[in-house]
C-alpha cells in the first residue's frame, strides 16, 4: 500500500512539475507580446560549466552588457580577467592588454553559430525559431525551452532552458558532448555601456 502511495505521489508530482518541453509554443507572436524585451540590458553573471569529459565544473563570474544594436560584451573578472565582445560577426578578445579579433564574416558556418548565440542573448525569438523548436510555460515566472532542429547547430547546442520573470534570470544549456552550462544573472539594469571592439 505504501508502495502504491509513493508511486501516486510521484505521479502527481511529475504531472505538476513536468518539464517545459511538454509545452510546445504555437505562436511566436504571443511570445513577443508576453516577454518584456528591453533594447539594452546589463548586470552581473555567475557561470558554471560542467565538462563531462573531465568531470570538472568551471566557475566564473563577471559582468555583461547587451545592446540589440551594438552587440554583446562579456567581462570575466574571476578566475581570469578578460573581455569578449561580439559585434557585427566579429569576436574581439581582450586579455592581458592584448586584443585579438576573429572575423567570422567569411565563414558562414561559424557565423551562423554566433548568430544563434547572439539571437538567444538578444532575445530575437524569430531568429531563434529558425534553429530551435520553442516550448513555453508561464505563470509568475516564465520558462522558455529550446530544442535544436538543425543537425549542425545541435553539434554545438542541444537543449536550452531560459528562466526569468521580468528579465531573464537564468540560462541553462547542454551540448552534444554532454557539457552543461548554467548562467545566473543578477543586478540587471536597463542600461548598457558602450560596446565596441575598438575599446
Amino acid at each position, binding site marked *: 500500500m505504501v508502495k502504491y502511495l509513493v508511486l501516486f505521489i510521484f505521479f502527481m508530482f511529475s504531472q505538476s512539475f513536468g518539464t517545459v518541453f511538454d509545452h510546445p509554443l504555437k505562436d511566436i507572436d504571443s511570445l513577443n507580446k508576453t516577454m518584456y524585451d528591453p533594447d539594452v540590458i546589463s548586470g552581473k553573471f555567475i*557561470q558554471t*560549466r560542467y*565538462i*563531462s*569529459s*573531465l*568531470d*570538472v*565544473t*568551471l566557475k*566564473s563570474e563577471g559582468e555583461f552588457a547587451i545592446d540589440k544594436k551594438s552587440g*554583446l560584451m*562579456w567581462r*570575466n573578472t574571476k*578566475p*581570469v580577467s*578578460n573581455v*569578449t565582445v*561580439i559585434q557585427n560577426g566579429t*569576436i574581439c*578578445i581582450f*586579455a*592581458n592588454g*592584448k586584443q*585579438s579579433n*576573429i572575423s*567570422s564574416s*567569411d*565563414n*558562414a*558556418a*561559424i*557565423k*551562423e*553559430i*554566433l548568430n544563434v*548565440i*547572439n539571437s538567444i*542573448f538578444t532575445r530575437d525569438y524569430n531568429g531563434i525559431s*529558425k*534553429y530551435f523548436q520553442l516550448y513555453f510555460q508561464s505563470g509568475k515566472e516564465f520558462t522558455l525551452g529550446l530544442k535544436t*532542429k*538543425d*543537425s*549542425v*547547430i545541435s*553539434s*554545438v547546442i542541444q537543449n536550452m532552458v531560459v528562466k526569468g520573470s521580468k528579465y531573464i534570470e537564468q*540560462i541553462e544549456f547542454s*551540448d552534444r*558532448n554532454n*557539457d552543461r*552550462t548554467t*548562467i545566473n544573472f543578477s543586478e540587471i539594469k536597463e542600461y548598457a555601456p558602450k560596446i565596441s571592439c575598438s575599446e
Partner: protein
Amino acid sequence: MRQKSVVLNRHFLYVFLLLIFTAIITIIFLSNPISVKTDLLAMLPATSDNDLKQRVFNHVSINSMGRINILFGADDTALSKEAGLYFKSLITQGNVNYEVEQTIDEPFWNTLASYNYNLLSDRYRLLLEKKNYDELTDSALSILYSPVNAAIVPFAKDPFFFLSNYIMESGLLKSGFHPEQSVLVSAYNGKIYSFLSVNLEQGVTFSPKTLSVAMGELEQAKAMTLERFPDILINMTGIPVHTYHVSSSSVKEVGIISAVSLLLVLAAMFLAMPSLYLILATFFPILSAVFVAFMSVNIVFKEAHILTLVFGTSLIGLSVDYCLHYVMERRELKDSYETLKQIKIAVTISLITSIIGFAALTMSGMPLLKQIAFFSITGLLYAYMTVMIIYPLFFKRDILKVSPDKLRNIEKSVADAFVAFSKKYIFIKAILFVVIAGTGILMLKSDDGIQHLYRPSPTLAEAEKLFSDVSKQKLSPAFFFVSGTDDENVLINEEKLRKNLDNAVSKGILTGYKAISQLVPSIQKQKENYILSTEFFGSEITKLAGLTGINDTGITIMNEYIMSGEGKYLTVDDVLKNKHFDILKSLWIEGQGSVVLTEGVNDYAALMNFQDNDIYYMNKISDLSDMLAGYRYKVTFMLLLSYTAILVFMLARYGLRNGAMTAVSPGLAILTVLAVFGFTGVSISFFHVIALFLILCFGIDYSVFHTENANRLKYSAAAVMLSCTTTFLSFGMLAFTSFEVTKSLGLTLFLGIPLVYMFSLLSKAIMGMKL
C-alpha cells in the same frame, strides 16, 4: 552531228559520275551519326605547351562545364529547403541523368576532428613557432569562460580550441553557404537561399540536342516548383544555362533574320526572274552544295562545328553566281552547250580564285578554319559541277522568263555615275581615298578578348551576380596547376606557392585563393604542427589545469588524447569523401596534381612570377585571347598571300592594266571597311578578318564576271547585280544578330558586299567597259 552525239554521251557520263558521287557521300553520311558541335574551344588548337597542362585545362573545364547552380530564395529556410527538395524530386524522375547534391547530413568538421593537433591556422602556428604561449592560453581561457564558446569537439580533445580556430580561419572554408536543416543555405538581402548543385554528364553541354532535353526538364521543374511555391525565387546559373540560352536565342534570332532575308531574296529574284520554276532551279544547286558540303565535313572531320555552318553558308553567295550566270545567259543563247561554253571560263576562274582564297585558310593550323575551308571548297565544287552538268539537262530557253533589262537599267545608271566619277580628277580622288582610308585604318583598334564573344542577357548577368553575391564566390580566370612526384609532394609544392600568394594578398595583388592545402596540410607540415602542439601542450596544460581546477585525472585524459594522435594524418581522400567538400574535387587531379584557384586578381602579370618547375600559371581566357590574336595576324597574312596569288593570276590572264583593275576592287573594299571600322570605333577581331576573306572572294567573282564578259555585259552585269543583292540580303542581315561571331561576320559583309560591288563597277568604268 556525230560530234554533238559524242559531247552528249560524255555529258551523260558526267551526270552519272556526279550522281554516283552524291550517292556514295550520302550513304557514308547516313551510316555515321550526325554531329554538330557548339563548343568553340574544341575547335581551337591546344593552347598549352604540354599534354599535362592540357589535361589540367580539361579537368578545370569539365568541372565547370556541366555544373548548374540553383538557388531557392525564400523568407525562411524551411520553405527554401522544401522547394529545393520538390524541385529535386521532379528532375530525378526525368529522362536525363543528373548528379544532384543538396543534403548535408553531418557537420563538415567531423572529418577534421580526429586530427586536431595536426591542423593549425597560420596565425596559431606562428604564435607556436614564436613560443608566444601566453597569448594562446589566454585566448583559450577567454573562449572557455565565454558564453559564446562553440566547442565543436569535447573540451578534453581540444582544450586550447585549436580546431575551432583552424575552421574559423581556413581560407578554403570561406563560403557564403553554411549547413542548416541539412542543406546548404546562405542569407542575403533579407532572403534565405538554399543551394542545389546539378551536374550534367560530361559532353551534355556541347550536345545541343541533349542539353536542350536536360534544360527543358530543368525549366519545367522550375515552372512546376514556382507553381507550387509561388513566393519563392529560383535562380539558375552555370555554363550549361548560358550555352542553352545562347543556342536557343541564337536559333530564334537567326531564324527570324533568315526568314526575313529569304523573303527579301525571293522578292529580289522574283523581280528579276518572275518564275517559281527558275527560282527553285536556282536554289537547287545551292542547297545540294550546302548539303554535300555538310555531309563531307561530317565524314572527314567526324563532326561539323556550328561556326563552320555559319561561315560556310557564305558559299551560297558564291554559288548563286554560277546559277544566275547560267540562267541569264541561257535566256539569250539558243543552246545549253553554247551557254556552258559562254560562261565556262568566267565561272571556272571564279571557282579557282575562291578555292585559292579558302585554301589559304587550311594552312592556318586551326581546326575551325580547316573545316570552314573544306566545307566551302567542297560546296563550291559541287555547286559548280551541278551547274555545269545538271543545268544543261533541264533549262529550255522558252521557259525562261528572265528580264535582265530591269536589272541592267539599274546597274547602268549606277555604272554611268561611276563612269562620270572616274572621268574627272581620278588621281586626286585616289589620293584623297588613300588619305581618308589611311587615317581610318590608323585609328583601327583590335580586341581579341574571347570573353567579348559572348555577352549574357541582362537576366542571366543578374542571375550570375546574385549567385556570386550569395555564394561569395568571385573566382578569377587565372589559376595555378601544382604538380609533384606524389600527393605529399604536390601538397608541399602547394604550400610553397601559398607563401607567395599570401604575400601577394597582403600587397593587394589578389583578394584570396582556394587551395586544398588550406584544409589538408602536407604530412610534413602536419608532423611539424603536431610537434609544435605537443611542445606547447606539455608546457601549458598544467597552467590551464591550475587556472580552471582540472585535476590530474583530467590532465591524464587530455594527455592520452594528444598522444593517440601521433602518426595519424588527415589526407585529401578523407576530405573528398565528405559530401560537404564535393566542390573541392575540382581542386584535386588524382595522381596528377592540384589546382589553386585565384580570387579578385588585380595584377595577373604579377602572378606569373610564382611559376617554377612544379608550379604552372594558367589563364584560359588570356591564353585563348592571345591565341585568337595570333590567328588574326596569321589570317591577315594569309589574306595578303591569297590576294597576291589572285593578283598574279589576274595579271597573267588579263594583262597588266586589266588584271590590276580586275583585282583592285576587293582590296579597295577591304581597306574601306577597315577605315569605317576605324572611324566608328569598331574593334576588329579574328572573326572580322575571316569575313574579309569572303569579301575578297565575292569581289573577285564580280570583277571576273565583268571582265570576262566585257563584250556582252548585258546578261553578265544583271547576274552580278542580282547575285550581289541576294548575297547582301542573306549575309548583311547577320549584322543585326546579338551573337558576336555572327555579328562580326554580318557587319563586315553588310559594308563589304555593296562596297566591293561598287568598286568593281568603278574599275569597270576605268577600264572603259560599257553596258
